């Protein structure tokens, strides 16, 4: 059992609170993504988990041991963690095999065991043929794989990955995403995967911790983040979500009737939703469409139409609220002139709960 329990974790840099009372419980074997815009404190969280930094408040518990607290800090070399660094941090003066086997050498494993386990780890990532190469002779994707194998060979109880795909080209990323999923299945290790790319996080993780300006704003399964964001920030961040102001929230079983620019709609809401005069509604682009002739919708003025092949992206300003720009996808074969007025229907939405 190596659950990670993070309680009330805070970190300051020069009086600035970079992490603010973060608390989460990561279950053994889970694949967690830590997601947030750049500069929100993701790397700081990872460095705290690894033991490179000590917290100013709160604790980190690894298994049944408190490894980080204000008073005491188990150093990284004693934590049995693995890290895949953003720039891989392969040691240029060692061969691939030596890189992968280093942790075992330090641990005092026999040469034979070291070779065997390095070979196995390299085989997992499909690199067993390149064991004698120098890291400088490898491509970006291959280096990434070596970094993974190096992490794997040490058999850490927790693997931390800091934006491991940020330095790869787009087409390699898709391949590596698959690799990570396979890898996680194969090893069963707890993985904490840091990224600022929400689609990456959605594709990979069992659960996603969304961080905004040092605070953990939501920690949920991808599907729940997408469908039931608990804050406007999450609603916007996940799946190119859009947020609309709505009036007259009237709870109705596990849904609610809300007024969107004067027209009533039935949308999803949490069970405990209260009667409110106004609220914010999370709507995904896929839930917004052009109204059929005769159908009731709200009016918008087309700003711009971008041809995207299988659909047209229509950016429009809401007539009732001219500062609000929204986007919907229209069938590519429908001609929509700019400056035209369109009618828009909303088929699904989620009432963002009032801030606690």
């Amino acid at each position, binding site marked *: 059992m190596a659950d990670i329990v993070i309680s009330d974790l805070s970190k*300051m840099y*020069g*009086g600035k609170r970079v992490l603010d009372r973060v608390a989460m419980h990561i279950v053994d074997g889970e694949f967690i993504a830590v997601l947030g815009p750049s500069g929100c404190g993701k790397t700081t969280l990872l460095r705290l988990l*690894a033991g*490179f*930094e*000590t917290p*100013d408040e709160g604790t980190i518990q690894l298994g049944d041991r408190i490894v980080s607290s*204000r008073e*005491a*800090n188990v*150093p*990284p*070399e*004693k*934590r*049995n*963690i*693995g*890290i895949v*660094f*953003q*720039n891989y*941090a*392969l*040691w*240029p*003066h060692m061969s691939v095999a030596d890189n992968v086997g*280093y*942790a075992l050498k*330090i*641990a005092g494993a026999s040469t034979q065991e070291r070779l065997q386990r390095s070979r196995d780890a390299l085989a997992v990532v499909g690199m067993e043929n390149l064991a004698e190469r120098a890291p400088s002779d490898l491509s970006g994707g291959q280096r990434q794989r070596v970094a993974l194998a*190096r992490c794997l060979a*040490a058999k*850490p109880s927790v693997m931390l990955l800091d934006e491991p795909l940020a330095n790869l080209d787009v087409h390699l990323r898709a391949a590596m995403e698959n690799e990570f999923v396979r890898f996680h299945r194969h090893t069963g290790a707890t993985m904490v995967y840091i990224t600022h790319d929400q689609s990456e996080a959605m594709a990979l993780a069992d659960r996603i911790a969304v961080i905004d300006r040092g605070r953990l704003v939501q920690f949920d399964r991808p599907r729940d983040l997408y469908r039931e964001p608990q804050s406007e920030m999450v609603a916007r961040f996940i799946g190119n979500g859009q947020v609309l102001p709505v009036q007259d929230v009237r709870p109705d079983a596990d849904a609610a009737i809300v007024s969107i620019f004067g027209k009533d709609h039935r949308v999803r809401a949490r069970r405990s939703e209260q009667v409110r005069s106004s609220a914010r509604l999370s709507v995904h682009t896929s839930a917004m469409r052009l109204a059929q002739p005769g159908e009731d919708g709200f009016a918008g003025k087309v700003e711009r139409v971008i041809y995207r092949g299988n659909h047209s992206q229509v950016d429009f300003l809401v007539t009732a609220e001219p500062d609000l720009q929204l986007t919907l996808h229209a069938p590519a074969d429908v001609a929509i002139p700019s400056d035209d007025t369109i009618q828009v229907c909303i088929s699904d939405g989620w009432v963002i709960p009032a801030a606690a």
Partner: protein
Amino acid sequence: MALIAMEKVEERRRLPALLPKAEWVVLGLLVIFVAGLSFAPLLRLAITAIAPAGVIDLGHVAELLWKKKVLTASTNTLVVALLSTLLAMVLGTVAAALTVLTDMRFKTAWVFAFVLPLMIPPQVTALAWVQAFSPSSPVLGLLGLSLHDGGRHPLYSPGGIILLLGFYHAPLVFLTVRAALRRLPAELVEAARAAGATSWPLIFTIILPLARAGLFAGAALAFVSSISNFGIQAMLGIPARYPTLITLIYQQMNSYGPSALADMAVLALLLSILTIVGVAISGWLGQRGDVRVDGIGRSLEIRLGRWRPIVEAVSWLFIVLTMALPLSALVATSVVTGFGQELSWKTLTLVNYANALVHQASIRNAFLTSLLLTSITVAILMIVSLFMAYFIVWKRGPLVRVLHLFSELTYALPGIILAVAMILFFLRPLPVLGFSIYGTVWIILAAYLSSFLALALRPVLGGFAQIDRAMEEAAQVAGAGFLARMRDVIIPLVAPAAVAGGVMVFMSALNEIQVSILLVSSNVRTIGPMVVFLEEGGSSTLAAAVGCLMIAAVLILMLAATCFSRYLPKGVLPWQN
């Protein structure tokens, strides 16, 4: 208020929490190293100067400084240092501008020849000049010229000292100005051209002002080096009866021995203050209106056109006059039996070299002592600098900054000051061992370790800055403790930089004179001061042979370092273009 309090707690707590045991031990050793070899001796020097009898006695200090001898020496020091710095600034800037900005040909060879004098020990340079321009000069004689006999040697004068110091330190200015010019973005110059500026106004209105920070950094180096250049000041100033502060300290110590120490401490302190003020002023001048220019400097070329052959001829003539001529005089003197003897196939002899290397035990031993001391110094400093750079670049913190500061301070201060401090500190028997290392080879080693630490450290600092900290962190998560990380990951990666530092220390320490001149005794001599002793004793030809051997050693080292230069970090070998 609450925030401030929290910050303080964090500062105090961060290091202990992050540093496991081995790191503490190493840091402790480094502190002892710097405290024992730099901080404590300098403190001792300051205390001795200000409070010789245990109580602060500024009256005594004032009285001493007011003596005519001291006033004259101080004025002389300032005069030669300032004027020679000016000369070095002009020469260095012209050289840098020519090699960076123009389409002059054969730049690599010229740069090598221009920077080479910096590698030659100053006492040897001075000896070469003295021999080249003496009435019985072997070279002028060959050229059919001769200075009329009688009267004093033209270089035994303030003008001679200034001239030689200026020539000697021009490469220092050259190196910093060149670095600054290379950073200039070509767009800036192109913009000025578009605005109608032609080449010459362009240089004076755009390029040089932008290179100003580099110029003053070089000036500071030249100033400090001039003040502390014992070789030239002693070889020319003592016969000229033109005392400067360091020759005064040297002569007083020679005449009165350790009993003059307290007074010499005052002079040393005065000299330190001059040095520090000089550095501060030029730092301030360089900073004022410092223009940060970013961007990758694309090389820019001003076409010299029909002036090119003339410029090239003049620049090579400069090399011939300032280097080839004196050095050939030195070589010529070293292969005749008596100074002033005509050089011909008949008079040609290697007897001086045989004497230096084989027959004269004192010279042979001096060579061996220097070689041994230098090797030990290099070995120790390479290790110390690897660990110290680790803390300076990656761990930071106030304690580490103080260590760095003191390593730089003992390097910047004139070697003779350090020697006085070392004598003061090590005169008394060592606490546990019960004997004094004064008069032994160990005090010279201590002084070398203190003096050259910064030289060994600088390239290593650069090396650390170039490697990604994640390299170490990756080893840390692999379970490697501090020493294992050092051994397996960090040292292999920064080793080339440490070797570069070692090479610089080796070249500087092997022939150095300013630190050891006060520390050598009749039993223990290094090779650097030997030239001065021999010349003072009238053995010019033997002195010339020793000088040539010293230059040969330097050239061999340079050659070796150049052969390995592709393994070294870029820009650590100053003589490479």
